[in-house]
């Protein structure tokens, strides 16, 4: 433990130089602005920033991306509170109580509470990251091809289920589509060109970053332009600094939401929005002031903001330990790490153990910057909300184009970005979540190589996929996730519950 603390201290001393502090401040502030502007998401911000930092040293670039990520998820709370529109999807739960507070004339106070909750959420998640990443990484060292295959399937199924709660079938279709996209291009075992139709560019495969910029950038530009214009009414902003007694009063909610947020964040592909909603839901169920929820509850606002920010370090845990992203912005972060020559995954703790501590330090610094910036310059930066979308969106699209192109100077990547933007737009219009597609593109290679490798090892025998302990656990989880969304299974579970309770009551009576 002390060795870990010394390591953290060392990393902190590396980053506490004027150059790094300046970068932390501007990138976090830029993240807050990106998150604040409706239509610009954390994923888009991190993706565009990846293209702007690809010439930087690896740790420097990752630091800026983490600052952007944390700043953007927090920044979305501003719009959620002031105009009832979540700046990013992660802040949707914040609108429920944040906006009523603003209407009561407590906009500044609500923003102060959101800032403090986000700070505490991130810090809680950071501690969990520091503790659990090495543990998960060590456990993952026992994974073989069979387990990696199930991990990829598990990621797609659970991401599809949680990002499309109304219709998980669409989530699974989206994930499978992503897995298919990953198979395009030259495969690793025989160098055979799959689905290339003689096209040299396709033989190189579909690059992750242009596809992500398209799905999260271009499609958002189209969606924002399609929506009716948002009339922004300026709210009066008074006291911002929150009262300590409010924080202490709801300490249980903060810890619970931090824990839930981190756990949800760590589930592959699920992300901060679900983390916020689940935290909010749990807070409401456990609250003594249930009637205040939805009408300006401080507890509700704190639960949502703690939950979404705790999900950020949570989403980074599987990135570092398994090379599987916990959310869409984390997927871009993973892509950026690969670009910078960092190889996250189970071997990270052996090959580059310092990197985990570096990331913990980066999250710590970004969270501190977010807290300081979040409580200052509020009135100035809220004015950014008044930028008309028709002035902002062409700039975003120009950055999407040059950002896709800059990484490998290929016109084909611009085409990929445009096509995936259109696909992403169509998917969003038809209620297909796009996060599973992105996760599918990332996990496709893992699934493809490990399934074939396993089959070669067992000469086509599929039994080890179900008899190895970790594989069996994954398989049962997947089955449960799929069946739990089916009505007959729910009825069966309910009937079983009734039978067990009845037999228990009868036994007691006897």
């Amino acid at each position: 433990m002390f060795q870990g603390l010394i390591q953290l201290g060392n990393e902190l001393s590396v980053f506490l130089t004027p150059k790094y502090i300046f970068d932390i401040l501007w990138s976090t502030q830029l993240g807050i602005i990106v998150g604040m502007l409706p239509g610009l998401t954390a994923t888009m911000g991190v993706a565009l920033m990846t293209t702007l930092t690809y010439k930087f040293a690896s740790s420097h670039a990752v630091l800026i991306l983490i600052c952007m990520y944390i700043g953007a998820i927090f920044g979305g709370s501003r719009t959620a509170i002031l105009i009832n529109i979540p700046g990013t999807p992660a802040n949707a739960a914040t609108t429920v109580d944040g906006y009523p507070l603003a209407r009561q004339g407590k906009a500044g106070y609500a923003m102060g509470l959101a800032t403090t909750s986000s700070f505490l959420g991130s810090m809680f998640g950071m501690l969990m990251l520091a503790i659990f990443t090495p543990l998960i990484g060590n456990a993952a060292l026992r994974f073989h091809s069979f387990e990696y295959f199930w991990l990829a399937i598990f990621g797609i199924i659970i991401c599809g289920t949680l990002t499309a709660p109304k219709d998980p079938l669409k989530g699974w279709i989206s994930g499978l589509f992503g897995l298919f996209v990953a198979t395009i291009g030259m495969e690793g075992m025989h160098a055979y060109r799959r689905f290339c139709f003689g096209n040299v560019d396709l033989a190189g495969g579909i690059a992750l970053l242009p596809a992500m910029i398209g799905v999260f950038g271009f499609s958002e530009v189209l969606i924002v332009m399609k929506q009716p214009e948002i009339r922004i009414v300026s709210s009066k902003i008074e006291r911002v600094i929150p009262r300590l007694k409010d924080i202490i009063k709801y300490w249980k909610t903060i810890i619970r939401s931090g824990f839930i947020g981190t756990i949800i964040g760590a589930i592959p592909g699920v992300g901060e929005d679900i983390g916020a909603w689940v935290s909010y839901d749990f807070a409401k169920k456990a609250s003594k002031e249930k009637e205040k929820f939805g009408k300006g509850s401080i507890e509700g606002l704190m639960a949502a903001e703690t939950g979404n920010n705790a999900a950020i370090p949570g989403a980074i845990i599987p990135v570092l330990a398994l090379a599987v992203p916990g959310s869409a912005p984390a997927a871009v972060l993973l892509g950026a790490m690969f670009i910078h020559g960092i190889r996250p995954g189970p071997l990270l703790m052996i090959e580059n153990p310092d990197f985990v501590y570096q990331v913990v330090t980066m999250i710590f610094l970004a969270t501190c910057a977010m807290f300081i910036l979040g409580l200052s310059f509020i009135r100035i930066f809220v004015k950014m909300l008044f930028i008309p979308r028709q002035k902002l969106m062409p700039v975003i699209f120009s950055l999407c184009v040059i950002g896709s192109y800059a990484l490998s100077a290929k016109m084909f990547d611009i085409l990929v970005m445009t096509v995936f933007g259109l696909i992403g737009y169509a998917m969003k219009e038809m209620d297909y979540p796009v996060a599973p597609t992105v996760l599918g593109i990332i996990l496709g290679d893992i699934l493809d190589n490990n399934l074939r490798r396993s089959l070669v090892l067992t000469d086509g025998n599929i039994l080890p996929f179900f008899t190895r302990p970790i594989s069996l656990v994954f398989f049962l989880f997947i089955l449960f996730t799929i069946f739990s969304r089916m009505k007959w299974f729910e009825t069966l579970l309910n009937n079983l519950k009734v039978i067990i309770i009845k037999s228990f009551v009868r036994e007691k009576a006897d």
Partner: protein
Amino acid sequence: MKDKNMNRADFFTSICLFLFGLVILILSIRMPTFRELGANPYSAPGIVPGIMGAILSFMGVILFIRSFIRQGYKIKPSSQAIKIFFKNDSIKRLLVALFLSVFYVVLLGKINYFLLTGMYIFFFVLAFEFKTKKNIFSQGKTLLFAFLEALFIAALISFVFRYLFLVRLP
């Protein structure tokens, strides 16, 4: 999208998805197994995409049955409905943004990057701010601001990527 329209969209998508999955499956089956080179048949490149294709087709069938039960097959395209669709302000805004953006991508590499980006931003802003019914001279401010934004952003992006990141601009 409303539920009724969503069912129709699902019905149409399910057919596309089924066919898409089927095509993937057929193409995967036709991929070589490299047995003649002594490779293990289970390492064939078509295995994984073939499974994906089969599952996608299966999901297409489920989506088809579901949308069919919800009467998603009741699609009656009429000229009136198409007219209403294109008169919708949201659709107009979407089509304008889409057209300008795609046109920008198509022209990339054919026209100087700085000039093209500037023109794209200028016309994008004007497409949504310029009122054709108003006198052009009364909208001088709109034109000037659009021009200045286009000039500044195009110059900034070109400079940053060309001289700081050393990227050969498209």
